[in-house]
């Protein structure tokens, strides 16, 4: 049964999300609703354990291939797990387990919690589905399920801000998914198959140097559809509204989960499917524009969650910049920054949620002097702020330094300079936020604000410890990321493992 760990990592959260409404109806009748909450936490932890079980096999260089229904690919759907997949699956399941522990106390004052937990398990199942699958249309279907659950979670508290944010997110997200579907239909017409390894093999036979016009069209459609999802700069308009309106536990999952999955899909399309390292110039330019615009817009924000959302846009720019450099050091730096971004973004959004839970507002003009009331939250927020700006003993410094060195080595010193300037801007607006919330004069009505409860502090402290550990021992981070880098540039190994002996 344990050989079926890849498919169980998708099916167990999915079955959990089907069982949660039934358990919710039963427990509401007997007034024991804690059982449902603990059931959800148990399922997320079981998913994390399944991913950890698959980890040693993949890190030894094997690619796990699981065939659904014993059909041989390319006539059937298969799940193919290599180093890149397992890194993203580890990030997603880890952050989902921490978010479900965090929302035990955070969502205490909301009603309709049965639907909230159903959507949480559904979005976890679909994120695992996108990461672990080896079939292109299957990836699209799980991507749509993830997007739909995200639209519903953004509109969860039904005040007008949430609904407007959800409408905006939904229209732009559906447009992106439609463009992605158009790209898939062109690929099917060209090569007649939907398996990722098979498409990669047939495209490499057609040849990508020089790229024929139809392949350029396919790449353009797929990249546009995906960049709407990860909020690259011309298409980023939905992200600040959506992150401000959703409950903070969910926003931590979005910033660490859906963005990571979107970047994974982009890397899979560009590197495994097309085998093109020449796309680097476009990624560098778009990445640097995203970095700069995100940082400049974050400087003028007055609301904490919008500020963190723009800062998230800026960090995605760093990842694309690192990957776009094309050298080994650059790609490893970009992937390491993906891991770090998930950790400290989730930490910052959980701290913002703790402040909102105790105080009731996140407007920087109204807050002040909370470091006497909430000392642990202040300390954790400062750790997250220093980590995201790239200050030395934390993990942000390790990954950003790798990207700077890769930029100088690749001969593009201008972008390294730009990245350093944006780091300084990041430090500036985050220190402004820390100053406005925790230092300074405390208004009278915040006299009796207590510290955040322990079930909310525990995930935040775990993430802060990870920040410090990965910063003090950066070689540990590079060891985690190296199998992903090897899998990313090893297109032939992937095709050979999935299609078997060709």
């Amino acid at each position: 049964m344990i050989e079926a760990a890849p498919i169980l990592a998708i099916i167990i959260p999915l079955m959990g999300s089907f069982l949660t409404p039934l358990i919710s109806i039963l427990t509401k009748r007997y007034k024991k609703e804690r059982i449902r909450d603990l059931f959800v936490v148990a399922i997320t932890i079981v998913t994390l354990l399944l991913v950890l079980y698959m980890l040693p096999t993949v890190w030894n260089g094997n690619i796990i291939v699981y065939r659904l229904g014993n059909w041989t690919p390319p006539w059937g759907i298969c799940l193919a797990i290599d180093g890149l997949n397992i890194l993203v699956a580890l990030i997603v399941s880890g952050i989902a387990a921490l978010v479900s522990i965090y929302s035990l106390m955070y969502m205490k004052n909301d009603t309709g919690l049965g639907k909230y937990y159903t959507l949480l398990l559904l979005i976890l199942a679909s994120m695992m589905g996108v990461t672990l699958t080896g079939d292109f249309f299957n990836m699209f279907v799980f991507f749509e399920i993830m997007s739909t659950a995200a639209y519903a979670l953004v509109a969860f508290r039904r005040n007008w801000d949430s609904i407007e944010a959800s409408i905006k997110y939904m229209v732009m997200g559906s447009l992106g998914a439609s463009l992605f579907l158009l790209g898939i239909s062109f690929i099917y017409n060209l090569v007649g198959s939907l398996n990722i390894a098979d498409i990669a093999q047939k495209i490499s036979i057609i040849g990508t140097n020089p790229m024929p016009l139809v392949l350029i069209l396919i790449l353009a459609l797929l990249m546009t559809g995906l960049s709407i999802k990860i909020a690259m700069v011309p298409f980023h308009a939905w992200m600040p509204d959506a992150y401000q309106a959703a409950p903070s536990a969910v926003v931590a999952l979005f910033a660490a989960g859906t963005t990571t999955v979107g970047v994974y899909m982009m890397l899979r399309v560009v590197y495994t499917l097309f085998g093109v390292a020449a796309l680097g110039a476009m990624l560098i330019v778009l990445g640097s524009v995203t970095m700069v615009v995100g940082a400049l817009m974050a400087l003028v924000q007055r609301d904490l969650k919008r500020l963190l959302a723009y800062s998230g846009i800026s960090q995605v720019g760093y990842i694309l910049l690192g990957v776009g450099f094309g050298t080994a050091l650059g790609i490893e730096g970009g992937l390491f920054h993906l891991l770090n971004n998930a950790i400290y973004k989730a930490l910052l959004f959980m701290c913002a949620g703790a402040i909102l839970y105790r105080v009731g507002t996140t407007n920087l003009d109204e807050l002040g002097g909370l470091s006497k009331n909430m000392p642990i939250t202040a300390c954790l927020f400062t750790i997250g702020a220093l980590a995201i700006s790239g200050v030395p003993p934390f993990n942000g410094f390790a990954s950003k330094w790798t990207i700077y060195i890769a930029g100088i080595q690749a001969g593009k010193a201008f972008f390294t300079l730009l990245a350093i300037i944006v780091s300084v801007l990041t430090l500036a607006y985050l220190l402004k936020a820390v100053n406005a919330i925790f230092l300074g004069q405390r208004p009278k009505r915040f006299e009796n604000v207590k510290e955040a409860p322990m079930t909310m502090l525990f995930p935040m402290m775990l993430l802060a410890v990870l920040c410090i550990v990965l910063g003090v021992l950066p070689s540990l981070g590079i060891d985690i990321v190296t199998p992903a880098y090897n899998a990313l540039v090893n297109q032939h190994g992937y095709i050979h493992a999935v299609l078997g002996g060709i």
Partner: protein
Amino acid sequence: MNVDYIVAMLMISFGLYCLLIKRNLIKMVIGLEILTFGIHLFLISMGYREGGIAPIVTGTNPASVVATLGVDPLPQALVLTSIVIDVCVTAMLLSLAIYAYKYHKTLDMSEIRRLKG
């Protein structure tokens, strides 16, 4: 030049125009629907084979005849899945439109947009 492809591309461009230019929320939903239908039409018409029959194995059409003469059934399965996804997204958009009407008594998007910057 296959007439299906021309009609599909026309539908996609009309849907995109309607989504971007119109200001009523229901008209934006209709535009998104037309866009999606155009893509589905394009996907189905890709499986066409000249002089083909329906890919159903019956008494008069055994499996060998269907394999050589039938049209491709895989795009039909893909489009069926995509229609289901589209139904879910449309249902959610219309529910949010009901909420918008409840709060503001109007469906004009330019009057009810408040979040900027």
